[in-house]
């Protein structure tokens, strides 16, 4: 034990000075004794953190470049928004889909939702009149269908954690029930992709209700409690 003759306190350390007044301490170090608290270990700079920065940098620089090119030669159309949308989507895929540690069903559900949103915007804003509607007719129902299949397969394979995925499956299932409604109002003109998505979603929904009634009830209760 060392002693500070300025503060008149005993100090349990092998450090040379007093933590209170920074005066040099009296007494011998007991080197056999460990310091009470551990030494500083600098944080390890991980590849993940560096990749995050690099991706953000490349994204921002390419968006600025695209905007500048678009504006220097401006003819009334903001065509750069299409590649910018695509770049942002790639950014989201890398950040949320690859680098984040969210569970896989969440990743699939959120990426599918964003993809549908972006493609629908491109469809409505940038497609010639005659071809407009492809995103609603085909992309929306079919990507929901694919997402439903993917999450269901994951649940079947990784059965232990199925509760973690159930909520996201249910969200996509609910989304899949929308396209047939749009069919009824003639917003969607091609019926079969929507009906296929609806059929699968309905099947999954019944499956959840028949086989996991308690889990799904509990899950809804948890997620929506006020």
């Amino acid at each position, binding site marked *: *034990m060392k002693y*500070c003759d300025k*503060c*008149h*306190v*005993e*100090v*349990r*350390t092998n*450090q040379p000075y*007093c*933590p*209170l*007044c920074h005066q040099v301490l009296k007494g011998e170090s007991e080197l056999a004794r*460990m*310091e*009470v*608290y*551990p*030494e*500083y*270990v600098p*944080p390890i700079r991980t590849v993940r953190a560096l990749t995050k920065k690099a991706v953000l940098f490349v994204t921002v620089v390419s968006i600025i470049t695209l905007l500048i090119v678009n504006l220097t030669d401006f003819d009334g159309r903001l065509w750069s928004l299409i590649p910018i949308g695509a770049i942002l989507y790639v950014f989201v895929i890398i950040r949320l889909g690859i680098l984040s*540690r969210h569970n896989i069903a969440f990743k699939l559900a959120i990426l599918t939702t964003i993809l549908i949103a972006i493609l629908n915007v491109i469809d409505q804003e940038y497609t010639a009149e005659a071809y407009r509607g492809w995103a609603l007719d085909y992309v929306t129902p079919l990507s929901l269908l694919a997402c439903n299949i993917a999450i269901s397969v994951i649940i079947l394979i990784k059965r*232990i954690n199925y*509760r973690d995925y159930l909520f996201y499956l249910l969200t996509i299932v609910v989304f899949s029930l929308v396209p047939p409604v749009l069919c009824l109002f003639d917003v969607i003109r091609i019926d079969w992709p929507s009906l296929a998505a609806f059929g699968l979603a309905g099947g999954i929904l019944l499956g959840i209700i028949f086989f996991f009634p*308690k*889990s799904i009830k*509990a899950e809804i209760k*948890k*997620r*929506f*409690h*006020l």
Partner: protein
Amino acid sequence: MAHGKVPSANDWFRLDNAAKIFPAISTERETNTFRVQIEMTEDVDKDFLQLAVDAALERYPMFKVRLKSGLFWNYLDYNQRPFTVRPLTHKVCGPLDPRDNNGYLFQIYYRARLIVLEMFHSLADGGGAFALIKTIVYEYLTLKGCRVTPDNMILTRDSLPTKEEYEDSNLTYYDPQNHRHVKEERAFLVKGTPIEDGNIGLISGTISTAEMIALARNHQASVTEYLTALLMYIIYLTQIKYREHLKENQKPVKIFVPVNLRKHFPSNTLRNFANFVKSGMVMNRADITFDEILEETKKQFAFGLQPKELIRKMSENVSFEKNFFLRITPYFLKKFALRIGYKKMGLLLNTLSFSNLGKIDFPESMEPYIDNVSVAVYSGRFNTINIGTSSFRDKFRITFTRSIVETTIEREFFRHFTEKGIHVTIESNYVEEY
């Protein structure tokens, strides 16, 4: 079979009234974690400690959880993944990364003779944390082959978890008629040079419990009152005196002292059930004495500790939580409201917080294996210094944590005791060496 109810994956818990705010407002700097540390008399064996924690978690299903987000509120969901004990690092009350350590909201560290529990405040308060660590130490000693008995002071696997332990007692005891909001002035804040990388400095001093009590009794005060007044006096001496006319020094120095409501209401909950009293004073004169502050502190404590006043403060929080519009706001929006509200109504209203956990009791059979017990609270951007105290037998430990480099307050605080001839032993994590 004498084992408790087997926790099942269907278990989930609402956050209690106090816990609801912490996930929204916690950041890398404002971590809202606290530390409970037990120094054993012998080196800790990490394998036995791991087994002891696994055993203890069987008794505490409400700590075997992780935080999940819902549409309106977060909740605690049963965590089926394993918990691992870790060697102590230099981080004091650092942020608990939900993706780290399988999503548990607490960590158990070991180092030489130390067993350290760091807990996120959403999970429980000091009362809950001490219950958990006592069980862990009990299980640990049992595994080591020591002859220890729980003496009804420790929850062991011989008893079942009860509903009472999970209850949010704030909701039980609140009074919808008595929830008036009292407007408060912003407090004087201790400024300093921030420690790099958000590290926290820790300095703790050990003095004799008997001498501490005698000192307080000499002034006809409780230990908490005495130390609160002393802290205010030291802040006055080191931060304000000779500058008392300056504009920023007109704000009152306010000490936030948590009150364990289990001592005031018949509750056995393990979750947050604490409130506070505050002692505040504008230090704008050149001739303020310690005795004057102590008298003022005693008055404010007597007022703040009245059951009516405690219920009012509790009900104020509960009625805020029960606000219909707040409840139906989706969580991602609610988060911003909570953040702004907490900064304005929580953080900036206190100079520092001083948590006196008081006397920590262990069964007599366990006492020979334990050397001392201490508690520490995180320090952040505004409350740059916080203090936690606890006593075990004749060791009264006062732990300062700080987010600034300066140690003037600690130095003058401990010199106050040495000048009276009281022996002080100091420990530090030597954050200035980082």
